[in-house]
């Protein structure tokens, strides 16, 4: 059974600084998704990472995947208030199922 651990669970950020969210998973997976959820809203897909060493970037967010270490990171560059949300990683398990991490709640303070 695929288990997913995200850390930290909560991240208080200062505007303008850089931060990283970590996603560790327990068994082999062929792809990993990152999602964002704003308070009271549903989940929005950010990235899909398909192979070892894959890197995707969109604005101030950059996601990477190390399949050998079973680790994905979401790096936030020069945090801004608009990035306040909860971020989830979700590697794909057998049978086309996504297993979600517990989420990292991000709060960016001025």
């Amino acid at each position, binding site marked *: *059974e695929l288990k*997913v651990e*995200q850390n930290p*669970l909560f991240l208080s950020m200062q505007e303008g600084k850089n931060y990283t969210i970590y996603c560790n998973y327990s068994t082999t997976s062929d*792809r990993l*998704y990152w*999602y964002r959820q704003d308070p009271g*809203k*549903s*989940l*929005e*897909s950010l990235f*899909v990472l*398909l192979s070892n060493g894959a890197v995707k970037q969109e604005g101030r967010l950059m996601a990477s995947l190390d399949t050998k270490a079973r680790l994905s990171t979401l790096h936030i560059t020069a945090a801004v208030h608009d990035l306040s949300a909860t971020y*989830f990683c*979700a590697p794909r398990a057998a*049978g*086309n*199922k*996504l*297993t*979600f*991490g*517990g*989420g990292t709640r991000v709060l960016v303070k001025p």
Partner: protein
Amino acid sequence: DVKVTQSSRYLVKRTGEKVFLECVQDMDHENMFWYRQDPGLGLRLIYFSYDVKMKEKGDIPEGYSVSREKKERFSLILESASTNQTSMYLCASSSGIGVSPLHFGNGTRLTVT
């Protein structure tokens, strides 16, 4: 744009009631999923379906059942609601083609009293 619509945003039910949560998607997606979301636990998969009349158990199916009579509609059924089923329920769909992500509905917050 894919739209996944969940019929209720908020529901309050009593212990022992039979509860139906409805989900409809408009993109002809093959795959549909039901998750529940609880603080600190992320999303946990209850049931999913790859085709009409087909269903598969997820990680926490106990106390739930599902129905998929039409491709666009996937229903989650709580046979006899209990207080530990108080949660946010999220429906999602995907095409299953390539790397298409899950598209989520806005969720139904169910309270069982």
